[in-house]
């Protein structure tokens, strides 16, 4: 029942769970007692594979996709259309854009739509793991179907009311009109009639003609939470206030896997406001999202908890990862990259190609660890009492969180509720629910609701970091200047180590992010992956392994062009070659190619689309135009999350080596584009995040400890650094060209495009990020 799942919503139009309201308010439903709630269960018929649906990877995700309108839509007697957002909102716009798709097909008036956020419940809503640039890509068809189903039902109800054929009625902007007579009924007036009506089959449901879209593709719908954000009413995990709630911070081990030998909490407990100090069991690498352990200081306010934490005396056994040293590790990575490693793609005859090469070029590219530094640090509120847990958290995977909390507490998932707040940034950090598990443990111990809040120092020192990587590229050039051989070795601790500490090789998901799926038209290619162990927790970071791959490959292409005396953009297009689809078997990919969970039939690796975005970006920036002294243009392209993105950057480098970016042009081919306004905002944001990666991002370790702690020593791009203007060029496609990822694919091409522009401006080739550690004054 929709009313049941919404039963914990408050009144606000923004989010179910509100600060500063009583528990009684929290329990009040958003849907009134008189609301139309679809009652019958809709099961997609067996013969449902209608030609209009293309198959997406969402069908194969845990708990798949749900097409049931009863789960996602309710209509109030006043006509308010309530639509459930089941994916987490972290700035990418999913909480607006998916309900917008429903509303469009439903012919709903957007001003009469209320969005409610689903709690973690995948058996009901389908997959909720908001990660991998999947929300629109996986759910656009099911959302269209749901909206169209309810529209169909409303039309049927009106036809019955008037005793006329359904073909004579038509839903139009929140009312159903009888076309011959002009009579109409508002959706609210029809709501009651739908109660006993079964949902239609897939064959019965007609999707709108795209020319009739009101919201889809127009970019005219502002994000749902816009007003609340601008007046300070938007609720993030930081802002949840439950009656009786305590505030806690945790003193965590300085090194992953370090254990408490002994501690003295007496001074902490003497701080006014501090109430308890609670020990959290520790964990090592390989323990998935288990808390790192340590001591939680529980207080009546955050500041008291912070003062209490400062007063703790803890003697740590620093454990085996205290050896981790970034400089030493980098040396080892370089050594490993100069020797053969596990072959993950072998096409043609690489040895023969290098043996007959007229020239051989090699270069190594280094990208350090990065921390996510979401503006909202990790935080969660947990209330664990009487064998039940209620959680309020900013999490990307609320169902995964619910299962992990249940397992940790030894209770059934039925006894755990996970409410999803807005996320103040995600970037993959909030796919890992360790901070929620901390809150659950502390709450169980103290028998009261508690908020665990991470400080910025906690965030930078105790994260699940972007991997550190060394990519070595070698090219064999024949006497005609053609690339006949390409060897790429990738060394990086794997995300798999977070689940299995012994893992030393990258797994298919990492290999598929720009290594084995290299689309270049080169006859002989070999990709290798030497092993290396992890000493910190490695996690997903927006765009993941695509970041080092795009940086290395796209920089190397520009380097080769320079060596060969060719234009970098023309040479890039030459390497991409003629329009074709990459065949992974012919390409010699050793294991099954991971294509972001999608089939290559629906989402091929299409070199024609890849080349097209290069041409669009190059043309837009005026490639080849005359530039002022100290300016340079750079370009890079990368396919990731089954989307094609090319970025062209103009950089200006002053006499002191400081850079500024007058203009960026990014071309994106993401298939059908449902919300161009949010695609544009993602591309603008990707340029800034790409700039941070390129210019500043540099998390280092010594004696196993992170050497940075806050924005003063882990800087991120600011307004004065940001590109003056980012132009987004969206390649237009009809609905039949499947929607692909948007949240992540804008990031990877930015750093190499910038590095290539810096080379063009200064003659300095930067192979080790970040740029800020190099002298960029012109040669």
């Amino acid at each position: 029942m929709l009313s049941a799942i919404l039963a914990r919503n408050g009144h606000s139009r923004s989010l179910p769970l509100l600060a500063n309201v009583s528990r009684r308010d929290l329990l009040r439903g958003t849907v009134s007692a008189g609301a139309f709630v679809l009652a019958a269960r809709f099961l997609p018929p067996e013969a449902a594979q209608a030609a209009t649906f293309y198959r997406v990877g969402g069908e194969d995700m845990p708990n798949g996709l749900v097409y049931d309108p009863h789960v996602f839509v309710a209509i109030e007697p006043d006509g308010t259309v309530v639509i459930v957002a089941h994916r987490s909102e972290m700035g990418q716009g999913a909480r607006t854009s998916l309900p917008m798709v429903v509303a469009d097909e439903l012919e709903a008036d957007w001003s009469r739509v209320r969005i409610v956020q689903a709690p973690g419940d995948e058996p009901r809503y389908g997959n909720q793991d908001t990660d991998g640039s999947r929300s629109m890509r996986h759910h656009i068809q099911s959302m269209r179907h749901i909206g169209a189903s309810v529209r169909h039902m409303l039309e049927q109800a009106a036809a019955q009311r008037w005793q006329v054929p359904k073909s004579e009625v038509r839903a139009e902007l929140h009312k159903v009109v009888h076309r011959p007579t002009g009579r109409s009924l508002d959706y609210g007036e029809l709501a009651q009639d739908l109660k006993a009506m079964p949902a239609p089959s897939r064959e019965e449901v007609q999707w709108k003609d795209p020319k009739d879209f009101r919201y889809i593709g127009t970019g005219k719908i502002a994000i749902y939470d816009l007003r609340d954000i601008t007046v300070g009413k938007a609720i993030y995990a930081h802002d949840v206030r439950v009656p009786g709630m305590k505030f806690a911070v945790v003193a965590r081990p300085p090194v992953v896997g370090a254990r408490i030998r002994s501690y003295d909490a007496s001074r902490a407990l003497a701080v006014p406001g501090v109430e308890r100090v609670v020990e959290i069991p520790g964990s090592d690498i390989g323990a998935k999202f288990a808390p790192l352990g340590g001591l939680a200081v529980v207080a009546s306010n955050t500041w008291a908890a912070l003062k209490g934490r400062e007063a703790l005396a803890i003697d740590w056994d620093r454990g085996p990862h205290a050896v981790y040293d970034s400089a030493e590790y980098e040396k080892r990575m370089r050594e490993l990259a100069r020797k053969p490693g596990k072959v993950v793609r072998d096409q043609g005859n690489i040895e023969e190609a290098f043996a007959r090469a007229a020239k051989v070029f090699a270069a190594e590219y280094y990208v350090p660890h990065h921390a996510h530094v979401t503006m909202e640090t990790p935080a969660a509120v947990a209330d664990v009492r009487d064998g039940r847990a209620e959680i309020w958290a900013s999490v990307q995977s609320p169902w995964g969180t619910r299962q992990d909390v249940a397992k940790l507490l030894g209770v059934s998932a039925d006894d755990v509720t996970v409410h999803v707040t807005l996320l103040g940034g995600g970037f993959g950090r909030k796919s890992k629910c360790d901070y929620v598990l901390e809150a659950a443990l502390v709450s169980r111990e103290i028998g009261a609701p508690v908020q665990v809040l991470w400080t910025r120092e906690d965030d930078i020192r105790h994260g699940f970091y972007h991997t550190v990587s060394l990519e070595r590229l070698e090219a064999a050039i024949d006497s005609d200047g053609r690339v006949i051989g390409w060897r790429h070795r990738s060394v990086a601790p794997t995300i798999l180590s977070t689940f299995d500490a012994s893992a030393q090789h990258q797994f298919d998901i990492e290999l598929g992010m720009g290594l084995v799926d290299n689309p270049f038209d080169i006859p002989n290619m070999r990709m290798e992956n030497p092993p290396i162990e992890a000493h910190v927790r490695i996690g997903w970071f927006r765009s993941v392994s695509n970041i080092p791959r795009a940086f290395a490959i796209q920089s190397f292409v520009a380097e080769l062009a320079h060596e060969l005396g060719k234009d970098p953009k023309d040479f890039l297009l030459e390497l991409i070659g003629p329009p074709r689809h990459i065949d992974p078997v012919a390409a010699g990919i050793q294991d099954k190619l991971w294509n972001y969970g999608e089939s290559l039939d629906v989402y091929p690796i299409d070199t024609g689309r890849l080349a097209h975005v290069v041409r669009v970006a190059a043309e837009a920036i005026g490639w080849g135009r005359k530039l002022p002294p100290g300016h340079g243009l750079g370009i890079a392209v990368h396919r990731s999350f089954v989307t094609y993105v090319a970025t062209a950057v103009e950089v200006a480098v002053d006499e002191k080596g400081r850079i500024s970016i007058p203009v960026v042009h990014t071309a994106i081919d993401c298939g059908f584009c449902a919300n161009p306004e949010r695609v544009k905002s993602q591309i603008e944001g990707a340029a800034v995040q790409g700039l941070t990666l390129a210019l500043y991002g540099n998390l280092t370790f010594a004696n196993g400890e992170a050497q940075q702690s806050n924005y003063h020593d882990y800087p991120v791009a600011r307004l004065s650094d940001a590109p003056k203007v980012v132009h987004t060029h969206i390649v237009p496609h009809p609905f039949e060209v499947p929607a692909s990822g948007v949240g992540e694919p804008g990031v990877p091409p930015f750093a190499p495009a910038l590095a290539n522009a810096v080379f063009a401006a200064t003659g300095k080739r930067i192979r080790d990020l970040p740029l800020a550690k190099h002298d960029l004054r012109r040669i």
Partner: protein
Amino acid sequence: MGVRLIVNGHEHDLDVPPEMPLLWVLRDVLGLTGTKYGCGIAACGACTVHVDGRAERSCVLEVGSVAGKRVTTIEGLDPAGEHPVQRAWREMNVPQCGFCQTGQIMQAAALLAENPKPSDEDIVQALDGNICRCGCYERIHAAVRLAATGV
């Protein structure tokens, strides 16, 4: 111990230590959660409020130091939420995740109160201390200009 605080025109007599940062008083004692924690060291601007009309970082401001002064938070910037900066933010669709935006808006509002017609460089200078990790900077800049000039 006790501090008399004036927040958004309301007086509060609070039993809090005077060295407690204003941020935590606002958030944890008064329940005004529109002012955000982002770094605790005045490096990101998420906690920006007005004290007697000037933008201040509440995370490093001892509550005792603002006793008796007029503190304005995002909740009190405009009773109807229609301050020109708020309207400009909505017009330009500035936010992505939105977390930093209340601090950005408070910073921008303080700038315009002091300098109603800022140059582009004035805007950069005034808002360079406010981090937006989603990277909405171009729109932030444009929204401040819009609020100042109507274009």
